[in-house]
């Protein structure tokens, strides 16, 4: 039985934690929170230098050809540190989409640039305040031009290009959805930062006014590719959530051990003890589901869709709970701007919304289970 990361992967994880503790402390996160800067450029530069952006890109395309298990351990540390960088957009979304559906030419063009940090990519899916579905989406791709508004687009103000989920043809079914690569610095693209509940992470409104684009994958095949991309990203984001949830538990524990009330540490009251035990339990369930997700991702297992949904459901539950009960454990200090609790509360919420809602992933998980249980 060897259901664990390897020693090399653990070493990589330690290095990642060390780098991020050193270069991307919560001071760096607060700088992004409090200013108009969209991301921590120095941290990003360091990440690129460490080769993390090319972790799962084959050497033939300029990557370092490690794999997704390595990406998972990095993701956990990014989640723990709240590093304000466009890693998830560029690596979990854009890179994965290109690896799945890119033509040889597209791979040659984008992957080496992504690996080298010369380009930052993202995925533009959402179109406002409801789920983006073949029925609700409106952004169109016609005659090589993209038209419409995507919002929120993660790291939309930072990325050089976006993979835009577009409608091709007038239908409302999955076959009416395609993917288009659009240069965000080119003609017909306007973008502006959005005011959001997680200002430590750039989110943008991107308006396409006949912006030139090229198909990624087959026309009408976009929805299927999108699901694959989201599944793969779900595992990686789950590791970010696991890292964040673990950070919250540690903060809450430290505070509860050192905060005295009624002559004793508040950690000695069962109400707090059991709250932290509940956090630990949810975190362990999340971690274990995510390990299985990591295995399924790294082996491209047939069970990947269910494993990914399971990782995401458990990790969303864990991080949201840990983030809000970490505030609660801190009492009055917990809801001050000065304390760091809210940084995790905000990030937890964004991650839980980022790939689609908690409910939608639960639904997806059960659909996968139904297939498995089909008579």
């Amino acid at each position, binding site marked *: 039985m060897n259901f664990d990361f390897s020693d090399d992967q653990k070493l990589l994880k330690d290095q990642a934690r060390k780098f991020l503790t050193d270069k991307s402390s919560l001071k760096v996160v607060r700088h992004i929170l409090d200013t108009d800067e969209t991301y921590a450029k120095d941290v990003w530069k360091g990440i690129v230098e460490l080769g993390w952006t090319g972790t799962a890109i084959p050497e033939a395309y300029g990557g370092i050809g490690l794999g997704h298990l390595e990406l998972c351990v990095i993701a956990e540390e990014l989640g723990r540190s709240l590093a304000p960088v466009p890693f998830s957009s560029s690596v979990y979304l854009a890179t994965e989409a290109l690896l799945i559906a890119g033509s040889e030419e597209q791979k040659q063009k984008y992957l080496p640039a992504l690996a080298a940090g010369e380009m930052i990519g993202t995925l533009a899916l959402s179109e406002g*305040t*409801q789920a983006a579905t073949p029925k609700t989406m409106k952004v169109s791709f016609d005659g090589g031009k993209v038209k419409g508004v995507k919002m929120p687009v993660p790291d939309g103000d930072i990325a050089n290009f976006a993979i835009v989920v577009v409608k091709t043809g007038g239908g409302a079914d999955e076959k009416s959805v395609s993917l288009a690569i659009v240069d965000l610095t080119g003609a017909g693209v306007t973008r502006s930062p959005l005011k959001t509940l997680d200002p430590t992470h750039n989110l943008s409104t991107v308006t396409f006014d006949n912006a030139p684009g090229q198909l990624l994958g087959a026309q009408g095949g976009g929805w299927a590719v999108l699901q694959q991309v989201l599944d793969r990203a779900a595992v990686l984001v789950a590791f970010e959530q696991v890292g964040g949830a673990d950070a919250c538990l540690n903060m809450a524990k430290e505070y509860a051990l050192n905060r*005295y009330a009624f002559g004793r540490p508040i950690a000695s009251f069962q109400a707090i003890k059991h709250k932290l035990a509940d956090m630990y339990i949810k975190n362990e369930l999340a971690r274990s589901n995510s390990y299985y997700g990591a295995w399924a991702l790294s082996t491209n297992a047939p069970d990947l869709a269910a494993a990914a949904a399971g990782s995401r459901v458990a990790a969303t539950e864990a991080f949201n709970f840990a983030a809000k009960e970490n505030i609660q454990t801190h009492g*009055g200090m917990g*809801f001050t701007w000065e304390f760091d609790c809210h940084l995790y509360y905000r990030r937890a919420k*964004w991650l839980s919304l980022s790939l689609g809602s908690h409910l939608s992933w639960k639904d997806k998980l059960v659909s996968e289970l139904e297939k498995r249980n089909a008579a």
Partner: protein
Amino acid sequence: MDFEDTPEEAAYRAQVRGWLEKNAHSIPPGTRVGVTESKAWQKVKAAAGYAAITWPKEYGGMGGTSMQNVIYGQEESQYNLPGNVFLIGVGMAMPMLMVHGSPEQKQRYIQPALYGDEVWCQLFSEPGAGSDLAGVRSRAEKDGDDWVVNGHKIWTSGGHYSDLAILVVRTDPNVAKHKGLTFFVVDMQTPGIRVERIKQISGQSHFNEVYLENVRIPDTNRIGAIGDGWKVALTVLMNERSAVGNIFMNVGVDELIRLARDVELGDGPAIANAAVRERIADWHVQTQGLKYIRLRSLTALSKGITPGPESSVTKAVSAPRRQDLAAFAMELMDMGGIIHDRQIVPYRAAFEDDWLYAPGIRIAGGTDEILKNIIAERVLKLPGDVRVDTDRPFSDLPTGR
């Protein structure tokens, strides 16, 4: 069983309505008013007796019942009037003075508070003493006829516009924690007092920190005996509980239903989704339950019975519910739920506001955990937690770092 006034209540309500029609003038929408307008309105109310309906007449009150007070509140809430900045002075500090104050103190403070000439705030909590208020460490030391106070208070509402404050400080750290406290009135203009706003995670600042550095308070400002501060503070806290009960909800179940009608999930409008419906049902029965708990206590009040600690139930239910409901509404908006721009998000981002505000509500005025302890101990009469801090000198207690 009905929801009607008794004949006496109806008569009082008619009287109040008549008076308000003549004297209350709603602020036009969009107009900003401040403490000055609050003071002016308070003066009008005080002159008519409505500023202190339940106070005895000797103190300028109306000698009325709690039910009359509720009726006045219901009727006044029909108008858009200046904010009430007198809750601490009129609602908590003066009733305490009536019990513990000297004749001179009553003479000096009660009328100006009632007529809105002086606004009061409360210097109780400290960074290291919240739920455990008796653990305050701010020190007062006797120096001639004065006390010299050094310390740090927190969660002071209205600290920046208040004229006077009630203050609990430690005068003897070498006795048990509840025995070494003394209660004072302090003029907020006294040198050495510095008020700073606290920024909450919502970005708003509803509270202050108050730093006290060599603040001199004459001994004549002491309320009650030296060492009796906890007893005096309890009088204030009893009144605080009843003031905090009513929690304003920005958005609730009705808005959630409308949102669920407007947004699509993967397979149709959210309102058709049974998981959404289940939450609506659960939150609706909570909302209704709290509403009818309130009507049941009003009924008790109407019969002259002092209501029990149901405000603890109200807060214990509604604060976490508010957080959960807001978080869920944001889920319905999918990725867009993270947007905090009032021009873009439904209900001018009220769900998002609530989500940022709710963590504070779960803590301020009694954490979820403290409220459950209160219900367990005061309603169900279960034993208190084991105390390790009551029978040794305060200075011997461990404090963490």
